[in-house]
């Protein structure tokens, strides 16, 4: 008898314990294929992992559609990972605050695939925010700029995005332009050679303590931040987050951790920084 494949399609929700917490990991589309050859039944389970997942605050969150990026693209552009997801969850948690602040201009530094700022614009759009901000993407990797702009276009917010290839703020006039900055930096401690490799290495190689790019960002960013604006920055335990907060403090900034999460050997956090005298009055810069 010729083998006859039998295909059973299913839609299953999977709970996976992760980071010691039970977390809905999304809806998965699954196909079970039964193939009988010589009285032996082979069972194949084919899963398509959906991008949908539940954020930590229980609100259903959703990654922007990335169908325009292929496996090959991810050889040159950072693929969304645990740090990206944490950043997105942090912005979801802050969404009311962000919507109330009515930012006009947002900067995402090092956007990679563009997931983070595109997600934010989509969420603001869902909230029916009248005046969606204009978002500038700066990446040292031209393929990342192209990919991120495509992500914006494919997700219906392309008209709010512009991108350029640059080294942090080097080509930008210091004019306190941006009301909000988002930066998921290259934070992995790495040898100096990797810092110079360019391409995909620029997405993660952070030099000594993973801090080289972060420290340059802290030196430059305040000159470009509008009064009342804020910065969301991700860092990892090995970056010494307390030192990062001190560096910002020396620049006259307050800080507050939005979210942290353990992901394998990394302890990631997203922290919000804002200038003293703007926003929360409880902040004491001399403490």
């Amino acid at each position, binding site marked *: 008898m010729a083998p006859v494949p039998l295909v059973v399609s299913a839609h299953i929700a999977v709970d996976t314990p992760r980071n010691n917490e039970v977390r809905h990991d999304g809806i998965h589309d699954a196909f079970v294929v039964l193939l009988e050859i010589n009285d032996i039944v082979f069972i194949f389970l084919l899963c398509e992992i959906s991008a949908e997942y539940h954020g930590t605050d229980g609100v259903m969150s959703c990654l922007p559609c990335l169908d325009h990026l292929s496996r090959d693209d991810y050889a040159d552009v950072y693929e969304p990972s645990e740090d990206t997801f944490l950043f997105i969850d942090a912005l979801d948690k802050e969404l009311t605050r962000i919507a109330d602040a*009515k930012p*006009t*201009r947002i900067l995402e530094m090092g956007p990679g695939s563009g997931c983070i700022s595109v997600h934010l614009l989509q969420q603001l759009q869902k909230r029916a925010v*009248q*005046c*969606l901000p*204009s978002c*500038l993407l700066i990446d*040292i990797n*031209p393929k990342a*700029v*192209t990919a991120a*702009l495509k992500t914006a276009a494919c997700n219906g917010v392309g*008209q709010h995005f*512009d*991108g*350029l*290839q*640059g*080294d942090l703020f*080097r*080509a*930008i*006039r210091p*004019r*306190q*332009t941006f009301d909000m900055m988002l930066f998921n930096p290259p934070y992995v401690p790495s040898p100096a050679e990797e810092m110079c490799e360019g391409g995909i290495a620029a997405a993660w190689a952070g030099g000594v303590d993973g801090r080289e790019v972060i420290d340059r960002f802290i030196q430059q960013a305040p000159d470009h931040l*509008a009064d009342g604006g804020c910065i969301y920055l991700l860092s990892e335990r090995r970056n010494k987050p307390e030192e990062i907060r001190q560096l910002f403090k020396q620049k006259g900034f307050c800080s507050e951790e939005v979210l942290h999460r353990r992901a394998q050997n990394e302890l990631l956090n997203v922290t919000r920084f804002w200038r003293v005298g703007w926003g929360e009055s409880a902040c004491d810069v001399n403490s």
Partner: protein
Amino acid sequence: MRLLTHNLLMCNRKQCTGGFPLRIVLDTDIDKDAQSVEESEFRPEFIQHLLPKLDWEALYKTAQELNLSPGVPPSYSEEDKKDENFLRAVHDVVMDVHILEGKLVCPNCNREYPVSKGIPNMLLTNDEV
């Protein structure tokens, strides 16, 4: 690249100061469009918020160089900020005009920064940093 973004860009060679605004030179030797106008939603409130963030002199100069019509006036008053026609003209210039192919030339040292597929490359060589 919108003129909104162009309004922020400067020459960043260590040997050069005051390279602003960068002169836009469109690439006319190609089959595809070097410049496009893509109409986007006009939001007066957004433009009002944007005004103080713009370098007006640079924007006016650039709009003149690109022969944008009607472009923007050389200056604006408090009254203008409430005038929808004025706000619409600003919107048309900063949000809808896209530079796709060409180069940005420093008015000071003539360093050229290429623009390809709407993305300017502002990176420098090692001896310029």
